[in-house]
């Protein structure tokens, strides 16, 4: 790819061309699917959670190169994290890990954050007992 010109940097291009964790998880513990009103992209993240920790993550994305790369990177980043850590996950981490995104494409990383959180919420809904340590701080600070 040395004399290839690319729209995105090489990390983004790599995650677009060779996405990590692409697919669905059989018997996922939490699944989140979200859409971006801005451009129409749709992202789905499935999680396997064990002992309060994300064991595995998969994504499927209908969207542009940076949306695919963002979901690929997001699933990479959150594997191994606790639910609490994952709840604090921010799109900024995706942007940084990707080495930056064009300004107009930042919303793709936001979508990845939202998909992850939707999957976590799904997990919490299915496993209300797990919500205790996670959801508790919220009402307090609210």
């Amino acid at each position, binding site marked *: 790819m040395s004399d290839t010109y690319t729209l995105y940097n090489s990390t983004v291009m790599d995650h677009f061309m060779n996405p990590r964790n692409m697919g669905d998880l059989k018997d996922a513990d939490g699944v989140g699917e979200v*859409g*971006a009103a801005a*451009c*129409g*992209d749709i992202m789905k993240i499935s999680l396997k959670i064990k002992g309060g920790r994300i064991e595995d993550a998969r994504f499927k994305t*209908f969207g*542009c*190169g940076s949306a695919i790369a963002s979901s690929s990177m997001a699933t990479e980043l959150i594997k191994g994290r606790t639910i609490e850590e994952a709840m604090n996950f921010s799109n900024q981490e995706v942007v940084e890990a990707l080495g930056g995104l064009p300004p107009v494409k930042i919303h793709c990383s936001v979508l990845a954050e939202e998909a992850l959180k939707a999957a976590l919420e799904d997990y919490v809904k299915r496993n209300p007992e797990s919500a205790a340590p996670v959801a508790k701080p919220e009402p307090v600070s609210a």
Partner: protein
Amino acid sequence: MRNVYLDHQSATPLLPEAFEAMRPFFTEYFGNASSLHQHGLRVRDALKTARQHQAALIHAESEEEIFFTSDGTESANLAIKGVAYANERKGKHLVVSATEHPSVMNSVEFLEKQGWTCTRVPVDSQGFLSLDALRGALTPQTVLVAVHHVNHDIGTIQPVADVGRICTEAGIPLYVDCEASAGWLPVDVRAMGASLVSYSPHRFYGPKGVGVLYRHRRARLVSILHGGVQEGGRRAGTENIPAIVGAGVAAEVAARELDGRASHVAGLQQRLWQGLLQRIPYIKLNGPVPGPGRAPNNINISTEFIEGEGQLLLCDLNGIAVASGSSCVSKSLKISHVLAAIGLDHALAQGNLILTLGKDNTETDVDYVIETFAKIVGKLRGMSPMWDEFERGVIDSVIAPRGIGRSFSEHAAAVSGKPAHGS
């Protein structure tokens, strides 16, 4: 890896003979056409010849009806604003088709801020404008009708001769943007009944840096870039002589090779669309079927359940250069207003790809594109939650509905919490 350039709508390589004609005008015959000495007078001759070539291409009566600008955008701005300002006292109403290029649409919007009003004539699902609606839009205050010849996105050929007759009857000047047709289809300004016609030779193997505006000698037009008295006082600024000379050669060659080019790309167009249709399920052609209603070089498709930018990038990584009207490729995150105007479902607009053929494309190119694109679609559908949901019967296809599941748009609206824009 094979390289197949299928974006002739965006740019074409300069003809070698045009380049050779331009070459001496850079360092040797570098004069300013306004100068009264050798260096200036010599390039005046070249300017006149170049004007004649453009006049011949579009069957203008005289080369004095040809004005050079810097590109198609400037020509469109000059046509719209130059006629509007010239006829300000007569009326301040304009009529344009809904699928004009942004250079026309945004010129009109600018005039609207300055007190003009404008009627946008709707088009049908194939992009054809409604002649009745056009007729109904004309008022005694209408000073200009703007209808493009060929749509830049979906290739629709508008019934400009009919529009010309309506305008002639009503005594209103007609401006025809021929950017997507000149050099590919015959353009006859008189048969069109056009008072103004614009196009840009860089779209048919001429150089960048020059646009053409034809103005019938009786049409009133004032300058919009003010300064010196170049171009008969209608376009100030030092003429871009090398580009004008190269554009002349490109026009001459285009006039000569027009029929050959058109039938060559028409053949490829058929092969490409038929190939795609056979190879890829849930794919749709936007705009009229290949034939007399469609420009011979344009294929505009929507591939369901996947988005356009990803298609474009994977095509590029496989050596295939294409364009897309998807919102993800636009800086404003909006789908092409043409796709919106023909009422295309937002999901299909997102999966849009524009392929424009050129004289150097071959059947082998086309076959490579079909095979490669089928693989790309497979890869992206494999990644798409929508494809999976379609296969599981959660959502339905817009292109070939099975009557199972909700629509893509309903689904997208549900998961995004808001309706997708454009729908």
